[in-house]
């Protein structure tokens, strides 16, 4: 059973490689909950204390107040120590092993401090661990038990159903398939040939099954070997429902009519059982029979159904699950192996926020989504600590061979600050056969480098490094690294990573990110934001904003860097995908980007994520320089780009201090009716040779204004939700009318944390930031 973690109730959070703000179980939900514990507008300001212990630098780690690097192999010792210390405090003693801190570099003091924090927040603390290792999970559970987290920050009464499965039974299945015991196999929602370390075994076994059916949206590695493939409708074409957390039933509705001849799994099954029905009918029928009786609120089924469609979910109350008591025997029998592992480095396999386990690999938007940490696109690679790379004399892009004795993989190196010296990290989800189709993505011209070469895939499949251990798949293991002569480019959207300029060029820190600590902030909300500038200007003020004056504020303390805004903006505004080579040439077209800066020593960096889009400056430097007036200011303060007037001199982009303007270097649109169906009809598709940039989803603003006018009401604060704002799980982005004194934006603009980047230059940007507050000493 997977418990439902309640981050919103936690005051102290200790994460062991659990990327809960990135990819772990339910990141969107966790991000929302997590941000509830970090409320700076309350008095006194409230902020949870978050410790992240991990080998690589994850999205979650980049947001932690205290980040400690440790290999997965050290986790046992660390957890053991924490558990033992907590036992001391709780006055019990069940642990059979004593922690040997010599096996870890993490100091006793550090751990003791964490332990005392955990203990003092007893009942409001939460320890989570992402490692797929029963022994570690037992320790974690025991710690949570000692801390009284069960029933508080860990909800067992309403467990999560999001990541359920039994890994071990796959091996049983393979054995049975090999043994000829399986005569028919239906495969849906999984791709074992690709994603099992012994995928090859599965493939061979599959050949022995006389009748196999693969249900799939795309041709995948497993379906290729099935006897029958049933094309599945896309989830946006079909009806479906789900129950992510006990008691919350939600409905998926189709957005478009089906493009091809496909059926959903349910439809297939119903057709085969002879009672052919549409997925809609099937779903409604199921709800009528199974969901309707579970609730009392709606007397009429149609009522319930309508409510569910409007809200997207219904809450039902099943009889509470009896929380099983903690099994102390597991703790008492715990054994941690202390065998010296072979191999020089610990390989950590992880998922990226865009591609996840590989299920999104065929989606070019997500392939081109910059990884929140490395800012790399269209590839996986070997992340290693910069010191390690230096020691091995490896530079970014040098291809290395990673081997664990059985499997090998060749990938380019990417030095990653903040990574443990002994850890190398490789993302899963790459090397999918479906990505071969990207060889033609991006513009075609003489010096192009194809995103993937003929017959190759995007990245390499790292699943083969997963290890079966005690019936579970381990996401880490020991490997060796061998340099090769080869190099391969890694395309990144950001290549200089510090807010401080290089030492030999002055070494000054730029005041673009303003930050403070919780302690300072509690004393003075304006701490870290004390830059006084006199704004003197020579222009006569001819432009007064009498109606709306739009503005945006982004809370740096909330932004986790998850990049949902980037994708939602891309989808909303028809931003083309340009391919790996173009990104490498620094020509991606994303209208919003998240600048990620490191500070501090390379081995122990602090990270900040700063979303940047067009700042819609009232004194926009881009506007004055356009010879043909293709970029202008609206009377509501929007910096408008008039695509069909633009001749493409690019001066506006040069003169943009925030470098947010994007140029159509080529014609990216291809004549592909299917692909072009993803286009938002409210937004112009841009042609070659013109400039584009964030328009503040002006189509949404206009729509909301028209809607308000149609209804004859005043446009209310919050009626307009920009795509980025809407998709931000942390609610870090707020948009509104600063001419309305009651709006959220007006209040935020006068918040002591509010600042504008480069405000001393008098560009008068209307996008502002709230300074970053870190809960550290």
């Amino acid at each position: 059973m997977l418990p439902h973690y309640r981050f919103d109730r936690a005051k102290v959070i200790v994460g062991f490689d659990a990327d809960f703000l990135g990819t772990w179980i339910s990141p969107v939900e966790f991000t929302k909950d997590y941000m509830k514990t970090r409320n700076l507008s309350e008095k006194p300001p409230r902020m949870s204390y978050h410790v992240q212990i991990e080998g690589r630098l994850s999205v979650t780690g980049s947001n932690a107040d205290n980040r400690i690097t440790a290999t997965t192999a050290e986790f046992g010792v660390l957890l053991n120590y924490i558990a033992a210390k907590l036992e001391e405090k709780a006055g019990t003693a069940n642990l059979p092993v004593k922690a040997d801190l010599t096996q870890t570099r993490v100091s006793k003091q550090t751990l003791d401090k964490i332990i005392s924090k955990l203990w003092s927040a007893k009942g409001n603390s939460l320890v989570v661990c992402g490692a797929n290792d029963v022994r570690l999970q037992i320790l974690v559970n025991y710690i949570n038990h000692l801390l009284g987290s069960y029933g508080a920050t860990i909800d067992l009464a309403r467990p999560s159903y999001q990541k359920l499965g039994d890994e071990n039974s796959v091996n049983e299945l393979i054995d049975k398939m090999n043994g000829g015991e399986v005569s028919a196999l239906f495969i849906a929602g999984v791709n074992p040939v690709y994603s099992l370390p012994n995928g090859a075994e599965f493939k061979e076994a599959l050949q022995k099954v006389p009748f196999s059916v693969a249900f799939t949206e795309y041709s995948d590695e497993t379906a290729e070997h099935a006897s029958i493939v049933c094309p599945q409708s896309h989830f946006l074409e079909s009806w479906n429902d789900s129950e992510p957390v006990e008691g919350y039933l939600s409905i998926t509705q189709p957005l478009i009519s089906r493009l091809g001849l496909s059926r959903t799994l349910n439809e297939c099954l119903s057709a085969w059982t002879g009672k052919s029905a549409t997925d809609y009918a099937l779903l409604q029928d199921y709800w009528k029979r199974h969901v309707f009786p579970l609730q009392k609120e709606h007397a009429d089924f149609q009522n319930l159904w309508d409510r569910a469609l409007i809200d997207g979910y219904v809450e039902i109350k099943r009889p509470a699950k009896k929380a099983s008591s903690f099994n102390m025997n597991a703790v008492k029998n715990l054994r941690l192996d202390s065998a010296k592992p072979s191999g020089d480095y610990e390989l950590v396999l992880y998922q990226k926020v865009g591609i996840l386990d590989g299920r999104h690999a065929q989606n070019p938007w997500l392939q081109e989504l910059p990884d929140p940490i490395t800012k790399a696109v269209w590839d996986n690679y070997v992340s290693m600590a910069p010191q390690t790379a230096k020691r091995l004399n490896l530079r970014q892009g040098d291809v290395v061979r990673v081997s664990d004795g059985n499997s090998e993989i060749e990938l380019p190196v990417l030095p990653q600050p903040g990574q443990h010296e002994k850890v190398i990290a490789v993302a899963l989800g790459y090397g999918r056969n479906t990505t071969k189709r990207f060889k033609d993505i991006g513009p075609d011209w003489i010096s192009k480098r194809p995103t993937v070469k003929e017959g190759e895939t995007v990245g390499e499949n790292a699943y083969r490094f997963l290890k079966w251990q005690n019936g579970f798949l381990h996401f880490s293991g020991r490997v060796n690294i061998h340099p090769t002569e080869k190099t391969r480019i890694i395309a990144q959207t950001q290549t200089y990573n510090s807010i401080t300029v290089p030492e030999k060029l002055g070494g000054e820190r730029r005041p673009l990110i303003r930050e403070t600590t919780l302690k300072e902030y509690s004393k003075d909300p304006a701490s870290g934001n004390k830059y006084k500038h006199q704004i003197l200007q020579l222009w006569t003020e001819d432009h007064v904003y009498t109606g709306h004056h739009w503005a945006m504020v982004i809370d740096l303390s909330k932004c986790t860097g998850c990049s949902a805004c980037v994708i939602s903006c891309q989808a909303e505004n028809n931003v083309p995908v340009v391919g790996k080579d173009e990104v490498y040439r620094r020509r991606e077209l994303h209208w919003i980007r998240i600048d990620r800066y490191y500070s501090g020593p390379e081995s122990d960096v602090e990270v900040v994520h700063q979303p940047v889009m067009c700042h819609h400056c009232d004194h926009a430097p881009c506007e004055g320089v356009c010879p043909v007036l293709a970029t202008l200011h609206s009377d509501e303060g929007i910096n408008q780009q008039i695509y069909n007037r633009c001749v493409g001199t690019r001066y506006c982009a040069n003169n943009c201090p925030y470098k947010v303007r994007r140029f159509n270097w080529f014609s990216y649109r291809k004549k592909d009716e299917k692909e072009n169906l993803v286009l938002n009809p409210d937004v112009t598709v841009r042609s070659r040779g013109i400039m584009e940039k964030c328009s503040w989803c002006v189509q949404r603003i206009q729509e909301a204004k028209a809607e308000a006018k149609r209804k004859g009401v005043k446009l209310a604060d919050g009626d307009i939700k920009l795509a980025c704002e809407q998709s931000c799980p942390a609610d870090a982005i707020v948009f509104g009318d600063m001419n309305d004194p009651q709006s959220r934006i007006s209040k935020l603009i006068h918040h002591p944390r509010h600042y504008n980047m480069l405000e001393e230059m008098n560009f008068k940007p209307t996008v502002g930031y709230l300074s970053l507050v870190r809960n550290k000493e």
Partner: protein
Amino acid sequence: MDLFSAVFKDEDDLLKVTRQVRDSGYSIYDIYTPYAVHGLDDAMGLKPSKLSYLCFGFAFLGLIVAILSQYWIGSIDWPINVGGKPFNSLPAYLPVTFELTVLFGGVGIFFAFLFKAKLRPGKTAKLVNPHSTDYYFILTLEIKDSSFDSETVLSLCRQNNAVETKIILGNAL
């Protein structure tokens, strides 16, 4: 009208004889030289060219046109917010104003000159001597009436090393 013409090989001779014939009261029809001889206008008694006033006029017109049209476009016909700059961005209008001033002045004076000098593409040149555009200097005097004393003129020319003299009957120029 008949003309007297004399050919010289040196500009100093020409300058001298020009001054002398003018002092003697003869009216100079024209002088043809292969290059602009410094001081010849003075010797001939030509008044300063009025073209400079015309040039000033053209340039001033350019100035006015530029300033007014930019002001009209920016402030009256199409007042829009360009980067927060004032509608009447006078400092930013200066470069174009200057360029138009020069353009009007320059193009204007060129065509005014062609008009004044009656030059145009393809016009047939009227030459007294085929070498007057190469190495000969030719003085032509008007023979208005009998008061024209060809003897004196001839002797003046000879003193100043005239290469050749002749009378051109009927104005062939």
